[in-house]
């Protein structure tokens, strides 16, 4: 059998590009699966490790200032493992001459047993010291030992940085106004800063028995003081967002590689059936000499096995490399001190099985069917060509040939069109996701937020009187808890006058105005509460229990909120607590209260999105690679399969150019259908993302800009043309005499 093995290698060498292209597809599928899925597991493991090491809470309460001694009462409740109370406040610190907003969070004298602070560097703070979030320190280059000038209201304090830290409550800071600045300050210092002596405004609890039971007991304790918000672990905003994102990640990690593996299997099937068909006579000879059916099957199975082994082994290595790079860059965006990157035997096992089995199974179909053929029949060649009868005398001979080739091998045509469609899906979806991110930024910062600053104060007149302020309006922004049939749902209530700085949009991009009366609810909330238009709903707010008529319900992009008219809210007893300003100057505005600059927020968000865009750019590249591998494969097979026909045409006097034209026309026909099929698939994938990433804290608008269609089409066509080159080169350099002599039957 040595010579048969030799033949394997010779055949491989003779058709190395085709084999490489197919192997590459397997490689892509396996590496993507290994990479994405183990990234998913890494990220999950990272969260789990961090949340468990820092004793993440089982539930939390945001309350009006209540005595700290109540914590003792909570500790005595059966089932409570640990409890921590906090006071929080906002302030600014001066870094490099710039005032940066920070959130101040109190921490007990000793690290708590729930929501523990994870110290990355330095020590737990004592006296006038504070720990700062690791990312915050990295970003502004604040080092340990440095003194921070803190301003809260109109008083100033000096805090020494005792170290950098991470906290399970602030893994993902999704509220744009909070930014990355969190300072963990000893409780007694916070008492002084806030003036809330012996009080707490947040309670975080870890339990070892039933959460609901303990939670309701704790709620009872704080009821007299007023509970702003109560949530369970799964509803903690950062945790929830991460879990959602992780779910989407898992879907992606399964969907894209599966599609690729299917494509790889198809490619193996098509390529191998070409190879085997082309060697019909060789098979007949082998059988006539005395090689058995099994010998022949094993001989040809070597190819898919080799494709599988090489693609899989390389894919697994590349996959783990991708996974470690991906995990680290994903975790980099978050406030986490470390990441877990492991090798998962189960993932490897799955990769090995699909990476090997897909080509082998696909390959065995053709190999087996051919080995079944009787040598006496094979000797005569089974040139069963089926052409679908179409009249096309109107076209030139070259066009006719192109059309005939498309119709000649329907299976291959379908495979190529599917492969091209896949390329369109990858390229188109990635570009569309970039569009979606841009659209999101556009909706948030050009449409919804038309103002430049948001100032925490109620002095509209004072602000309007400032020189370069163009417009300023008071707004209400506060918490609200709805209750209906025993279901409570917490949200944000925003009261607006009719103006153009803070606008309400629905997911379709239609603008809405503050209702004359009643309240606008985001669709998800209305669904949860089971409430419909025109009904009246009860809610707890700052000003006590209120009732609203539901004026309208629609899905909202990005950060859904409940909107009402500010006049109505004022009549109910709410006081405007922010002023939105167009124009003006940050430093002057600061005199009125805490200022949030939209420009800064936008910059922060864009920074966060840049990683996403990198990822999408990577998938565009990936799509291009995939499309070229596919197209290259078909074109090469097409040419190799017809090299005798092409040689004959050239002998007859057709020029390389004319033959090339025919192949070009053929490829364009395939490309046209691939693109036609691809775009609906892109829309399907986007729809899928839309349902996967359906969130209540965050809803991304998925869009495709018209120019993206054009760009995708251009990319695919360019890819097609590039992958045609080697085939064209082959034709032009083809030795006609050599081809005609190769004849084996």
């Amino acid at each position: 059998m040595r010579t048969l093995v030799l033949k394997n290698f010779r055949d491989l060498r003779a058709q190395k590009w085709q084999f490489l292209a197919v192997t590459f597809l397997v490689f892509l599928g396996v590496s993507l699966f290994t990479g994405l899925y183990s990234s998913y597991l890494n990220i999950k493991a990272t969260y789990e490790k961090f949340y468990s090491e820092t004793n993440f809470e089982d539930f939390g309460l945001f309350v009006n200032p209540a005595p700290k001694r109540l914590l003792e009462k909570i500790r005595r409740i059966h089932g409570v493992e640990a409890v921590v109370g906090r006071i929080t406040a906002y302030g600014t610190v001066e870094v490099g001459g710039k005032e940066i907003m920070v959130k101040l969070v109190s921490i007990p004298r000793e690290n708590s047993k729930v929501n523990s602070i994870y110290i990355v560097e330095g020590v737990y703070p004592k006296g006038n010291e504070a720990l700062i979030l690791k990312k915050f320190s990295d970003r502004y280059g604040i080092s340990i030992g440095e003194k921070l000038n803190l301003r809260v209201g109109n008083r100033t304090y000096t805090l020494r940085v005792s170290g950098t830290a991470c906290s399970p409550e602030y893994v993902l800071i999704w509220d744009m106004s909070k930014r990355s600045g969190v300072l963990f300050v000893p409780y007694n210092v916070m008492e002084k800063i806030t003036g809330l002596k012996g009080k707490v405004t947040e309670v975080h609890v870890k339990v070892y028995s039933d959460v609901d039971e303990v939670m309701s007991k704790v709620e009872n304790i704080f009821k007299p003081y007023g509970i702003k918000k109560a949530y369970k672990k799964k509803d903690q905003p950062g945790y929830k967002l991460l879990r959602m994102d992780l779910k989407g990640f898992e879907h992606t990690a399964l969907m894209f590689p599966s599609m690729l593996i299917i494509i790889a299997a198809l490619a193996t099937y098509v390529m191998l059936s070409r190879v085997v068909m082309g060697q019909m006579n060789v098979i007949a000879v082998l059988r006539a000499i005395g090689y058995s059916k099994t010998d022949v099957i094993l001989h040809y199975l070597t190819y898919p096995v080799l494709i599988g082994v090489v693609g899989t082994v390389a894919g697994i290595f590349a996959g783990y490399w991708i996974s470690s790079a991906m995990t680290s860059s994903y975790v980099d965006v978050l406030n986490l001190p470390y990441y877990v990157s492991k090798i998962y035997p189960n993932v490897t096992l799955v990769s090995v099985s699909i990476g090997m089995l897909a080509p082998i199974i696909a390959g065995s179909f053709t190999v087996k069917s051919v080995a079944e053929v009787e040598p006496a029949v094979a000797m005569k060649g089974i040139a069963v060509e089926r052409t679908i009868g179409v009249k096309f005398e109107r076209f030139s001979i070259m066009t006719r040939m192109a059309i005939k080739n498309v119709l000649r091998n329907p299976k291959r045509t379908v495979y190529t069109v599917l492969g091209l469609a896949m390329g369109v899906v990858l390229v188109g979806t990635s570009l569309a996701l970039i569009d979606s991110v841009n659209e999101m930024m556009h909706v948030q910062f050009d449409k919804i937020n038309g103002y430049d600053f948001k100032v925490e104060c109620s002095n509209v007149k004072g602000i309007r009187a400032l020189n370069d302020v163009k417009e300023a309006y008071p707004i209400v922004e506060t918490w609200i808890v709805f209750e209906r049939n025993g279901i409570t749902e917490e949200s944000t209530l925003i009261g607006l006058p009719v103006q153009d700085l803070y606008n309400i949009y629905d997911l379709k991009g239609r603008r809405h105005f503050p209702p004359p009366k009643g309240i606008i609810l985001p669709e998800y909330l209305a669904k949860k509460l089971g409430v419909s238009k025109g009904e009246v709903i009860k809610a707890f707010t700052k000003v006590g229990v209120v009732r609203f008529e539901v004026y309208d319900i629609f899905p909202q992009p990005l950060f859904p909120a409940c909107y009402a008219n500010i006049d109505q809210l004022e009549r109910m007893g709410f006081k405007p607590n922010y002023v939105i300003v167009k124009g003006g100057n940050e430093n002057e505005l600061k005199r009125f209260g805490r200022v949030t600059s939209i420009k800064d927020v936008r910059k922060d968000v864009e920074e966060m999105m840049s990683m996403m865009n990198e990822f999408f750019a990577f998938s565009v590249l990936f799509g291009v690679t995939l499309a070229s591998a596919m197209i290259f494969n078909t074109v090469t097979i097409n040419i190799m399969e017809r090299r005798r026909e092409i040689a004959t045409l050239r002998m007859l006097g057709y020029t390389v150019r004319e033959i090339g034209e025919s192949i070009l026309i053929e490829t364009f026909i395939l490309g046209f259908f691939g693109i036609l099929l691809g775009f609906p698939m892109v829309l399907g994938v986007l729809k899928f993302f839309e349902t996967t990433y359906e969130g209540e804290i965050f809803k991304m608008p998925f869009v495709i800009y018209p120019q993206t269609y054009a760009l995708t089409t251009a990319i695919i066509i360019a890819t097609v043309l590039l992958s045609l080159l080697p085939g064209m080169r082959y034709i032009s350099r083809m030795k006609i005499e050599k081809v005609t002599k190769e004849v084996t039957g």
Partner: protein
Amino acid sequence: MVEKEVAMLRFEGVWKVYRMGRVDVVALRDVSLEVGEGEFVVVLGPSGSGKTTMLNIAGGIDRPTRGRVFFKDLEISSFDEKGLTDFRRNHVGFVFQFFNLVPTLTAKENVQLAAELVDDPMDVDEVLEMVGLKHRANHFPFEMSGGEQQRVAIARALVKRPDIILGDEPTGNLDFETGKKVLKVMKEINEKMGTTFLIVTHNTAISRIADKIIHFRDGRVFGVEINSNPIDPEELSW
């Protein structure tokens, strides 16, 4: 009468019918023939008379529709797939009309391909020398002429030390001189090594080198001629 020696190959009332939709094409009708050990037999007949069909059945790559085929005392027409493969492997050497070499293997490797199938093959270089191609051992098929390729095919058939070599128009594609060279190689092997040859052709001239000539027409054996005085291929002309 003395009991007749068992023939190397014997067809007994062999039929081959191809079913083409509603039409039956009868390729062989009631063919009976014998090829004795060490004989050089030529089958003559016009195109479409069933020669190739007969040869394929003789070599165990096709099966009769009806009738029996014996190789020595083995009834190969009753063999299963595996039995036929073993039969081909151990007893038969094929030389086809078209060259049927593996294009990605050199001359020597093509011969090796067959040598590896049996326990006691001839020396590959020696066989190539016998067909006069030692100097082309490392050439690929596309680097050789048609006659050279055909001689490689003979070497490949020979290397297994088969009992019988079946040739389907082995000179059909070759010019006169080259054809003669190929026939000479076969005849020499037949004489020196005693290998039985069954050659199919429509070229009547070739029959003059045979010990026995079987005439085919319309799928039937039309007549059998014994040539008591076969000539040397050198003396052939057509």
